[in-house]
């Protein structure tokens, strides 16, 4: 347009300009109309354009301030009128005690104010339209608030003022409390009032009335309410009920902020809830009689989930759960440990004073085995239980997992027989428990055992027991399935590495090679001489197998000697330079014995066979004294007594002892019991032995383990020093501890002893500072 103006010189002036009517007249007309708009009548007949033009004219002809202040006055007057006529009469009668009446009164007040607010805002927006020209020009130059803003300001000054404001706040708080007590209130009434408070700002840029005045009062009130509620609930409810109530409070408060309170208050309110309902009663709730322990006992997953959710809301909650879990597991673990040791100790006193002999030991042993199995099973059950709870209720929380593991590990290791028990459990499972189960079941059972195994601090102890048990299974052919055995081995390998299972695998290898050898040997036998007895040999590499090397010997009868010699020759032909040592204690024999009534196939140990064979030459009813037997067989006293006992005093009495009795003494004599009867064709005569170690055996195992540990520690020290050449004492001890901790918990004192031993043997030398060592190549 500007270019157009410049080009053409003639510009027609616009039509006459100047007020057609006087300002006074304009204002009187306009002010009447404004009043009409405020009173909300007659608006339909009013022309927008006329009023707009009036306002336009007044601004244009320098009467803006008159228009502005006049309008303000009219609006303020109107609001004051309303406050007097509508609001104040609806104040609640303050003395009224009845909550329901008070509720209704509050509602009335809130509704009145809300109605006035709605009318006011709609009026102000209408005025805003008419006075648009004023807002665009006059308010800017005069630097005063626009129509809408002064509308809010007037409302604040004339309606939201003392004492109306206080009454409103009290009304809102009362309504809130009323609802918290569990009654229904008119939420929209409260919501209306809250919205008014939210949109009014007493000072420019400052907080809203809600933030500045209602919220602090609200929070204070909430705090009081929940502090009391927390106390009451704690004293009156059991733990699950308490948690349920608390959870529903959380939800109702959340809902409240969504429905009629400001969202800004949500976090503050939740904070109060957390503080007074959760944090304040953490310990009290969880350690109630109906607390965590009981919930776990009764498997109340829902309650536990709730517990977890609520407790993780506050910083201390998780720790509290962890503590409680630890305590719970420790207590249960202690029970399990005590139960198992109670079974054992219950037997021991009854055994000793009665002097009933070794048969008692057998039952005691069986009982101990049962207690071992029960212990492991109990631990597994407990683990399953807590795992279930952990998965479902605790959302597989990592921190809780760590706590669980710690707790389990500590109580498992507090049972000093744990390694043996676990190995026995596996042994038992592989021997008979797994029969008829599917591969998947086997895998599952073994996996579970591995879980407990992981908790073991002294895995080398376990290895020793496992080796012994495995050897027995292999030699006696008691293992149910080779696959299961190998599966277990593979699992151990995964857990502890190649070295751990190296010897165990060696044992398996020996078994396989021996089987091949036997086939070859049988072919060899078939092609040459025929022997009176069949022989089956397992060649065991001495370093792999946990058997003692100084095996008990005995003089073999001619037939057996021949057989062994024949195999030895065969074997030596194949492998020169090897030495075979016969481990007769581990062998067994099948022999057919002719009794008076019928023939029986007896399965006996090699030694027992040797003893039995002695009676072959004794005539019917003849005796052999203990001494004679000993001389003929040259078996050691303890072994001989053991085998005689199993032949003459156990369930199947193949020999007769004179005089009869449970114990075998050196003055006894024996005769063949030709009158022996049994329903079974095949009879297995087990050698009397206990499965769980006796005290002495345990000490021996312990010693052996200690020795092994000494070697390992030394090897470890040398390995480290060879690598580093020079190291301070503390560093060395730390490093050794770190490396060995996968196998057992090394004692720093012991490590120090080993270092000294190595210095003596000149592997290491002390440096001059007396604190560090050098490696001597």
């Amino acid at each position, binding site marked *: *347009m500007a*270019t*157009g*103006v410049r*080009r*053409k010189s*003639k*510009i*027609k*002036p*616009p*039509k006459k300009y100047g007020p057609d009517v006087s300002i006074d007249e304009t204002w009187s007309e306009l002010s009447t109309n404004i009043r009409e708009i405020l009173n909300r009548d007659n*608006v*339909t*007949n*009013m*022309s*927008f*354009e006329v009023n*707009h*033009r009036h306002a*336009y004219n007044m601004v244009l002809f320098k009467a803006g301030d008159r228009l502005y202040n006049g309008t303000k006055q009219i609006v303020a007057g109107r609001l004051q009128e309303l406050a007097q006529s509508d609001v104040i009469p609806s104040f609640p009668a303050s003395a009224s005690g009845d909550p329901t009446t008070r509720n209704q009164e509050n509602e009335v007040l809130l509704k009145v104010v809300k109605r006035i607010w709605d009318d006011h805002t709609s009026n102000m927006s*209408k005025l805003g*339209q008419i006075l*648009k*020209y004023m807002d*665009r020009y006059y308010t800017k130059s005069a630097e005063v608030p626009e129509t809408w803003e002064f509308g809010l300001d007037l409302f604040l000054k004339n309606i939201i003022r003392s004492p109306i404001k206080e009454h409103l706040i009290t009304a809102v708080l009362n309504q809130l409390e009323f609802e918290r007590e569990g009654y229904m209130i008119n939420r929209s009434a409260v919501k209306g009032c809250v919205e008014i408070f939210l949109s009014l700002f007493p000072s420019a840029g400052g907080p809203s009335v809600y933030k500045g005045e209602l919220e602090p009062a609200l929070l204070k009130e909430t705090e009081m309410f929940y502090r009391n509620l927390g106390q009451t609930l704690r004293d009156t409810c059991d733990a699950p009920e308490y948690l349920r109530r608390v959870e529903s409070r959380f939800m109702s408060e959340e809902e409240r902020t969504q429905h009629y309170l400001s969202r800004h208050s949500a976090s503050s309110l939740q904070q109060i809830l957390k503080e007074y309902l959760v944090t304040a009663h953490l310990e009290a709730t969880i350690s109630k009689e109906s607390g965590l322990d009981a919930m776990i006992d009764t498997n109340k997953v829902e309650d536990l989930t709730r517990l977890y959710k609520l407790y993780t809301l506050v910083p201390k909650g998780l720790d509290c759960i962890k503590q409680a879990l630890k305590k719970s597991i420790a207590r249960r673990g202690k029970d399990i440990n005590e139960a198992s040791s109670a079974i054992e100790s219950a037997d021991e006193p009854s055994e000793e004073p009665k002097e009933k002999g070794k048969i008692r030991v057998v039952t005691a042993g069986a009982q101990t085995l049962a207690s071992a199995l029960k212990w492991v099973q109990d631990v597994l059950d407990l683990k399953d239980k807590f795992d279930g709870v952990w998965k479902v209720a605790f959302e597989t929380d990592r921190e809780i997992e760590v706590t669980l593991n710690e707790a389990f590990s500590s109580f498992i290791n507090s049972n000093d027989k744990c390694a043996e028990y676990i190995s026995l459990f596996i042994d038992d499972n592989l021997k008979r428990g797994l029969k008829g189960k599917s591969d998947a079941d086997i895998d599952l059972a073994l996996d579970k055992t591995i879980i407990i195994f992981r908790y073991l601090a002294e895995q080398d102890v376990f290895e020793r027991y496992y080796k012994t048990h495995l050897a027995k299974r292999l030699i006696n052919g008691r293992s149910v399935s080779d696959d299961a055995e190998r599966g277990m081995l593979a699992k151990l390998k995964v857990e502890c590495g190649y070295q751990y299972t190296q010897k165990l695998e060696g044992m398996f290898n020996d078994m396989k090679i021996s089987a091949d050898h036997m086939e070859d040997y049988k072919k060899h036998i078939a092609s040459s001489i025929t022997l009176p007895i069949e022989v089956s040999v397992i060649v065991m590499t001495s370093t792999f197998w946990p058997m003692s090397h100084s095996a008990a010997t005995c003089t073999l009868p001619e037939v057996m000697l021949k057989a062994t010699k024949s195999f030895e020759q065969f074997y030596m032909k194949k492998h020169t330079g090897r030495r075979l040592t016969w481990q007769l204690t581990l062998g067994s024999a099948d022999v057919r014995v002719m009794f008076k009534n019928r023939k029986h196939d007896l399965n006996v140990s090699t030694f027992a066979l040797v003893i039995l064979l002695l009676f072959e030459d004794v005539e019917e009813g003849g005796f052999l004294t203990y001494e004679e037997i000993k001389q003929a067989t040259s078996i050691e006293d303890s072994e001989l007594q053991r085998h005689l006992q199993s032949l003459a005093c156990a369930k199947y009495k193949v020999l007769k002892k004179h005089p009869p009795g449970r114990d075998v003494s050196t003055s006894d004599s024996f005769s063949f019991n030709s009158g022996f009867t049994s329903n079974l064709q095949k009879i297995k005569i087990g050698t009397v032995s206990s499965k769980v170690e006796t005290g002495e055996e345990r000490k021996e195992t312990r010693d052996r383990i200690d020795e092994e540990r000494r070697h390992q520690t030394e090897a470890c020290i040398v390995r480290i020093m060879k690598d580093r050449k020079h190291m301070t004492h503390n560093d060395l001890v730390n490093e050794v501890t770190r490396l060995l901790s996968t196998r057992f918990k090394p004692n720093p004192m012991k490590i120090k002893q080993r270092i000294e031993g190595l210095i003596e043997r000149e592997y290491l030398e002390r440096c001059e500072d007396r604190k560090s060592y050098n490696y001597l190549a």
Partner: protein
Amino acid sequence: MDIDTQTEVEPHTTSQGDIENGEDWVRLVSNDGFSFLVRRKVANMSGTIGNSLDPSSSYAESETKTYHATNDRGIIVQKLIEYMSFKAHYSKAKGDVPINELMERIPPEIVLEVLLAADYHEL
């Protein structure tokens, strides 16, 4: 008057949706009796006209869907409407706005008058 905004055809029905979308027709009348039918969305380009025709208010203008421009001649109202149509068309458009096209259509003689009217109508 042979400009685009004037039309003899008045749509026979007006639905609520049309009002909301500004697709219904409103009438603007100049002080010398010229009457213009424009779509509501075009009229809404002026704050003053838009407010007066606001369906939620109950002024005489919105009841009759007629706005009287009591201070302006037909030619001025026409130019206002031309600009309002132009603004309605291009305010959502991307790219260049051909400002010159509109400027050339305003005769210099009435420029001041148009300017005053534009100020009054919040354009």
